[in-house]
């Protein structure tokens, strides 16, 4: 590392903020852009599992809430791709790489949604897992990204309430409806536990070293369990992990080791719905290419 890079490292590690036109080490810029791009891709792909249920929402209220939630996610993708673009990679190139499979998106968006139970569980728990990471990103050393995270976190707060409302309504309903939630939870638990990433220590995680992330993966996972397992249990739902328990002395949760092979397999483009969803994006994009050219013509 050169002296200038070393000074930069010291600067961000003591809370220094970086703006778009500031000098950055090549490694910082490259890692930063890739990380942010994956986030943008995830917001955009996260739309697809939920879209199917917009069309099937069973009340006017749910229809409006779900449409608004998905709209927010599209809005988040817009905010984040703009940050990536200002870092030097145009949106169209990002979308090309997403569709071709060259760049990645989060594991949870590679899985199918099968019932209305999934709609509740996703909005409540997947969004909760995401918001924990997003709150940690409020302290990102790269200021333009930290700033948009404020708006994103603020909008996500309604998503979790909406999810909780859907779940609570189902849990207060018929046996069939309660079963929808439990069954969805059984399927989503694995991906949720993998969501925050493998248990790399923060000092070994370059994202943490450069203060792009301000929290280690395991810490995020512990926060998720601490916040949400009690919420799950208090509804009479069970978590499909017999090893899950909190050590009252240390305050740490113990759980069965998540399947890291599955995580790697899925994020490298082999999830159950990866191909279908990328196809949908590809087709939508191709069909509307003419619109973008018309708009670009002065």
């Amino acid at each position: 590392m050169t002296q200038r890079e070393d000074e930069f490292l010291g600067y961000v590690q003591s809370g220094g903020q970086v703006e778009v036109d500031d000098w950055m080490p090549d490694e910082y810029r490259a890692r930063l852009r890739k990380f942010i791009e994956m986030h943008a891709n995830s917001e955009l792909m996260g739309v697809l599992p939920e879209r199917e249920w917009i069309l099937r929402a069973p009340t006017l209220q749910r229809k409006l809430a779900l449409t608004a939630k998905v709209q927010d996610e599209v809005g988040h993708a817009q905010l984040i791709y703009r940050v990536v673009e200002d870092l030097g990679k145009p949106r169209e190139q990002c979308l090309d790489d997403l569709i071709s499979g060259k760049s990645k998106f989060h594991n949870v968006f590679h899985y199918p949604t099968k019932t209305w139970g999934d709609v509740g569980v996703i909005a409540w728990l997947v969004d909760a897992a995401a918001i924990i990471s997003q709150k940690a990103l409020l302290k990102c050393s790269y200021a333009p990204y930290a700033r948009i995270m404020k708006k994103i976190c603020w909008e996500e707060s309604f998503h979790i309430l909406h999810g909780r409302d859907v779940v609570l309504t189902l849990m207060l309903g018929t046996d069939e409806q309660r079963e929808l939630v439990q069954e969805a939870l059984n399927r989503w638990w694995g991906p949720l536990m993998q969501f925050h990433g493998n248990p790399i220590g923060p000092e070994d995680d370059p994202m943490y070293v450069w203060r792009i992330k301000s929290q280690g993966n395991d810490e995020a996972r512990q926060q998720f369990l601490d916040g949400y397992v009690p919420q799950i249990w208090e509804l009479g739902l069970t978590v499909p992990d017999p090893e899950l328990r909190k050590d009252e002395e240390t305050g740490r949760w113990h759980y069965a080791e998540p399947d890291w092979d599955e995580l790697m397999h899925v994020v490298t483009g082999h999830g159950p719905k990866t191909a279908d969803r990328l196809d949908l994006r590809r087709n939508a994009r191709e069909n509307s290419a003419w619109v973008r050219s018309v708009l670009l013509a002065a």
Partner: protein
Amino acid sequence: MIYEVFRQERKGQAFQHAGSIEAPDERFAEWYAREQYGRRGESTALWVVPREAVHPIEDFVDELNRNYHRVDGYPLKEKLKEARERAGTASRRNR
């Protein structure tokens, strides 16, 4: 074209930079800004400005420490102490 959006949260508050949007022209930019930064009524007002109209300035020169027009250029403690002693009002204050 990129447009920068500034938003005012409550009347009387300063407009703050909120983000940027891409739009083919002003009409579209207004629509998109209103939606991205105001669909929840979270802003009282917005300013939408083409990016090239915003000129960043990040260099400021003060080689000779011009503290004559700043508060830190006026450390008065010592002079005040002396002036009080001269006027005989110092001891009363020091009690």
